[in-house]
C-alpha cells in the first residue's frame, strides 16, 4: 500500500496533506508557547525547561522533546520531498507556456512553491539561530531562550527574516489548509465556506501570534 501511495500523484498529495497538518498542529502549539514571552523571562525560560521534562518520570529528560523533533523532521522531509517531486512533474506536464499569458492561472501554485522554499530556508536559519545558536547574534546561552529571542529581534535582519517567513506561513496555510481538506476528501460544496473561513482564521491567527513576539521586542514591551 505504501508503494501505491508514494507512486501516485493523488497518494503523494495525501502525504503532503498529512505532513502539512502535522506541522500545522505543531505550529499552533509553538505559537501559543511563544506568547509566554510576554509574562517575563522567568515564566518563558521555565516553560522552555518544562519542554525538556514533559512526561517525566515515564520519559527521561528530553525524551518527549526528541520524540516531537523526530516526528517533525519526518514530516518536513516527507512534505518537502513530495512537494519537490510533484512540482517537477507539474512543470514537465506543462512545458510550453501560452503566448497569451494569464497571470492569475498559477497564483496559488506559485505562492505555495515560493512560500515553501522560503519556509524551508527559514526553518534551517531558525534552528541555527535559536536552537543551536550557530548563527545567533550576541552571546547565545543554552537554557536562556528569553535572552536569546530578545537578541535575535534586536537585529534588523533577524526581524526581516522572521516577518517575511511568518507572512509566508500565513499564505501557505491559507491555501494549504483548504487544499489538504480537498486532498483528504473531506471538502464538499456545503463545507466549502466553513473550510475557507477556518483556513483564513488559522492563517491570520498564526501570523499575528508569531509576529507579536518580534513586535513586542521592537516596541520594548519585551526586553
Amino acid at each position: 500500500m505504501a508503494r501505491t501511495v508514494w507512486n501516485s500523484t493523488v497518494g503523494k498529495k495525501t502525504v503532503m496533506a498529512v505532513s502539512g497538518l502535522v506541522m500545522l498542529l505543531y505550529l499552533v502549539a509553538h505559537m501559543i508557547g511563544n506568547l509566554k514571552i510576554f509574562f517575563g523571562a522567568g515564566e518563558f525560560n521555565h516553560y522552555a525547561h518544562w519542554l525538556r521534562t514533559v512526561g517525566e518520570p515515564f520519559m527521561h529528560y528530553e525524551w518527549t522533546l526528541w520524540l516531537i523533533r523526530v516526528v517533525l523532521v519526518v514530516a518536513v522531509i516527507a512534505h518537502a520531498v513530495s512537494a519537490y517531486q510533484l512540482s517537477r512533474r507539474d512543470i514537465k506536464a506543462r512545458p510550453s507556456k501560452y503566448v497569451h499569458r494569464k497571470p492569475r492561472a498559477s497564483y496559488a501554485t506559485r505562492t505555495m512553491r515560493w512560500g515553501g522554499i522560503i519556509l524551508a530556508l527559514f526553518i534551517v536559519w531558525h534552528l541555527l539561530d535559536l536552537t543551536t545558536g550557530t548563527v545567533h547574534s550576541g552571546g547565545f546561552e543554552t537554557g536562556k531562550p528569553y535572552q536569546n529571542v530578545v537578541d535575535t529581534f534586536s537585529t534588523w535582519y533577524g526581524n526581516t527574516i522572521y516577518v517575511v517567513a511568518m507572512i509566508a506561513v500565513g499564505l501557505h496555510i491559507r491555501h494549504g489548509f483548504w487544499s489538504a481538506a480537498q486532498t483528504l476528501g473531506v471538502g464538499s460544496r456545503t463545507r466549502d465556506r466553513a473550510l475557507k473561513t477556518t483556513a483564513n482564521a488559522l492563517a491570520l491567527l498564526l501570523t499575528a501570534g508569531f509576529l507579536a513576539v518580534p513586535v513586542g521586542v521592537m516596541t520594548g514591551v519585551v526586553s
Partner: protein
Amino acid sequence: MKLTLRVWRQKNADADGAMSTYEVDGISPDMSFLEMLDTLNEELILSGEDPVAFDHDCREGICGACSLVINGDAHGPERTTTCQLHMRSFADGDTIDVEPWRASAFPVVKDLVVDRSAFDRIIEAGGYITAPTGSAPEAHATPVPKPDADFAFEHAECIGCGACVAACPNGAAMLFTSAKINHLNVLPQGAPERETRVLDMVAQMDEEGFGGCTLAGECATACPKGIPLTSITGMNKEWLRATRKAGRR
C-alpha cells in the same frame, strides 16, 4: 466585423511552431468562432495557402471535439465550447490570439489540433461498467436515489474536451478523470468496479504524464460543462477508500 488573428501554426508534431498574423473581414457577430475560422480558411485556400487545422465535429457543444485557447482562455471568454462561442463576444477591430491546448500529454499534431488519445486510454483503464446492458432495462429494476442520480448526471455531462487540462497550470487531467469516476462510482451499475476503477484510472492518468493537482481551480473555471472542483475532492476520497480497502485485503 474586421479582426486581426494571431494563430499558432505548426506543420507537424516535430516542427517548431509560431504565431502567424491574419486579417479577416466581413465577419458577422452571429457567426460561431469556428465559422469565423472557416471564413479565414476559405481565404487561405483561395490564395493557395495551407488552411489552419483545427478539431471540430458536432458544432452543437456536445461532442467535445472542438478546442482552442482563445486569448489565454480555453474555449474563449464565455463558459461554453468553442463551437458555441459567437463572434458577438468580441469587438470589431479586436486582435485575437488562438493557440492549441498545451500539455505534454496532449502533443500538437498540426496547428491547433492536439492528440487527446491519452483521455481514451484513461477511459479504457476503467471508465466503463462490466454488467451486460443489452436493451434498456425496466426503469424501476435498479432504484437509484434522486441525489445520486443528480450527482451522476452532473458528472456525466463531461464531454472529454480537455479544456481542464489546457487551463491547468500543471497540465493535470484531474477534473476529467474525476468526472468519469464520480459518474460511475455513485451508481449501483458502477459498484462492482468501484475500487479498481478509481485506482486504475488514476494510475493511467499518471502514466500519461499529466501533472498533479494543486487546487488552483482553473479547470473548473474553464470547463464548458460546469464540472465542479469538488469533483476532484470526490475522486480523492474514492481513491483513499479504495487504497485502504486494497491494503486490508
